[in-house]
């Protein structure tokens, strides 16, 4: 499924859950508010009954018609309240009983009023002792009934009030628990769904990331196992296509480099060999001019050959195609070999090369051939750029994590601008000496490429033109290999 749909469904489900939650909370709140209304009604009724009681007592004491009127209105409004209450089925019977008693209360009250008025209308002669006694007896009975009824109505009203109060509290409590449960289950559900969705998105992404990292480290045959059919699946298959293309291209470039080397160098073979045969006298003795000419051909042939090698080395370094052949090696030995190789050329220029190296250097895991080439390039430069009678000092020392090699000369030195560009391919400071000695300006960039691919560093120092130069490179003690950068 596409991620878009997955996310859409995830959101949709969350929305549905939220609305469900909302509706539920809303409903329970409604229930509470119903309960509360019931309770309010009940306490209003209680008040009404209480007031009626007061009015009753007042009437019985003062017999005022004003009170009578008040009673009627109050009773009427109380009755309205009683009609409203009782929406909750549980309270219906109770309410019915109260209502009956409430009506009875009014009946009795009205009767009492009637009775009293009747008593007033009795004439002197009518008011015989007998009649009066009867009336009074009736009145007493009614009043006592009235008081009893009013008592029971009040207590019933109070009970109703208490009952509805408890019901409200119960509803609130219930609502609280319910809401808590709902919110909890909402969180659990949405979390579960989100986790499922994000997992189904993230897992293939992680796969992709792993593959891309591996690919970036140069494993060009990396392929991703595609499981999902979503955008990531598409991305993965595009990645696979790209990887295949790159692998092909890379192979093409390797082939090209090999073919180029072959084609460029092949014509140099007979040039060099014929020159050597001629110089060796195999075709007869040469005069001095002929010898000079052939030597020039040979020299330039060699130079061209070096140039081709260097250009291809740089191309390989730049495309990270250098494959180091690593083994434990004695750096001290490699360096003293390189110094010895250089001695004869140095002697011709009356340059002294000295070598000092720290005792007990550990064996390093390095590519002997490449490191000799680095040494050779540095020594070659120092001798080349140092005038006759100068000196070149090679120093090998050990730091905490590295072995450090420094080649110092008393040569022509260089300015700041040159120092900056030293390690860029084809760079040569525009001096008389470079022109005289040729070279391609690749020696230092190649040296840098090799040192860096060993996980080391290379740098140069000079106090200025004519003040000599010092080149330093380090190699890590631990086998700590880095891919060359650029």
């Amino acid at each position, binding site marked *: 499924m596409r991620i878009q749909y997955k996310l859409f469904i995830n959101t949709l489900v969350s929305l549905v859950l939220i609305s469900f939650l909302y509706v539920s909370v809303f409903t329970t709140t409604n229930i509470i508010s119903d309960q509360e209304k019931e309770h309010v009604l009940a306490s209003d009724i209680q008040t009404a009954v209480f007031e009626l009681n007061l009015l009753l007592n007042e009437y019985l004491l003062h017999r005022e018609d004003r009170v009578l009127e008040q009673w009627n209105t109050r009773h009427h409004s109380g009755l309205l309240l009683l009609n409203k209450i009782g929406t909750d089925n549980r309270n219906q019977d109770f309410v019915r009983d109260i209502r009956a008693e409430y009506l009875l209360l009014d009946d009795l009250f009205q009767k009492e009023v009637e009775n009293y008025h009747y008593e007033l209308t009795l004439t002197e002669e009518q008011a015989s002792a007998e009649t009066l006694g009867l009336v009074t007896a009736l009145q007493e009975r009614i009043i006592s009934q009235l008081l009893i009824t009013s008592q029971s109505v009040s207590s019933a009203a109070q009970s109703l009030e208490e009952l509805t109060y408890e019901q409200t509290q119960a509803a609130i409590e219930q609502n609280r628990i319910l809401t808590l449960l709902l919110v909890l289950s909402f969180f659990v559900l949405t979390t579960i769904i989100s986790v499922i969705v994000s997992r189904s998105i993230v897992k293939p992404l992680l796969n992709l990331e792993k593959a891309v990292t591996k690919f970036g480290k140069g494993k060009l045959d990396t392929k991703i196992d595609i499981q999902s059919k979503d955008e990531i699946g598409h991305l993965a298959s595009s990645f696979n296509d790209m990887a295949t293309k790159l692998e092909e291209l890379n192979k093409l470039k390797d082939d090209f480099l090999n073919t180029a080397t072959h084609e460029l160098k092949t014509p140099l073979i007979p040039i060099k060999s*014929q020159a050597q*045969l001629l110089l060796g006298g195999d075709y007869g003795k040469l005069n001095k001019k002929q010898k000079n000419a052939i030597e020039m051909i040979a020299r330039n042939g060699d130079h061209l050959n070096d140039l081709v090698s260097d250009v291809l080395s740089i191309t390989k370094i730049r495309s990270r195609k250098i494959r180091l052949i690593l083994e434990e090696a004695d750096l001290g030995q490699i360096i003293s070999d390189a110094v010895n190789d250089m001695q004869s050329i140095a002697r011709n220029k009356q340059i002294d090369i000295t070598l000092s190296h720290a005792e007990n250097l550990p064996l390093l895991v390095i590519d002997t051939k490449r490191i000799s080439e680095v040494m050779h390039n540095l020594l070659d430069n120092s001798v080349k750029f140092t005038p006759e009678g100068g000196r070149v000092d090679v120093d090998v020392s050990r730091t905490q994590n590295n072995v450090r090699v420094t080649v110092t000369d008393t040569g022509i030195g260089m300015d700041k601008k040159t120092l900056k560009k030293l390690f860029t391919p084809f760079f040569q400071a525009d001096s008389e000496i470079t022109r005289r000695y040729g070279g391609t300006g690749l020696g230092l960039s190649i040296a840098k490429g090799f040192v860096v691919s060993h996980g080391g560093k290379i740098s140069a120092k000079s106090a200025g033109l004519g003040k000599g130069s010092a080149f330093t490179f380090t190699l890590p003690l631990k086998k700590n290999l880095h891919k060359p950068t650029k």
Partner: protein
Amino acid sequence: MPKAKKRILHVDDERDVLEVVKTILENEGYEVVSVSSGDRALKEVDVNNFDLLLLDIMMPDMSGWDLFSRISKIKPKYKVIFLTVLEISDERLDKLKQHGIMDYITKPFERDELVSRVKKVIAS
């Protein structure tokens, strides 16, 4: 001068290279048979005996590797030196050393180097 000259078969698709190698080695007293393709080399090996094979690696129809493995089927334990422009990785050389006496020389070579290597391998 020894009576029987040592015989060397040189295979390379470049005629100029064949020519200079022949001149250098004949001047050292070897007999050199030069052929310019793998097919011809196979025919030569079929009918003649050689003390050493000098093989180029990058050749158009049949690479030096292929040629070597086909020759090995006819006559195992040939002494071989590869003459190649490209460097051979050490791992590959180790594997090949199990098949015969192996060496390789990168072209363009120094005359002296060619001669001394050839001498050394034939003598071994």
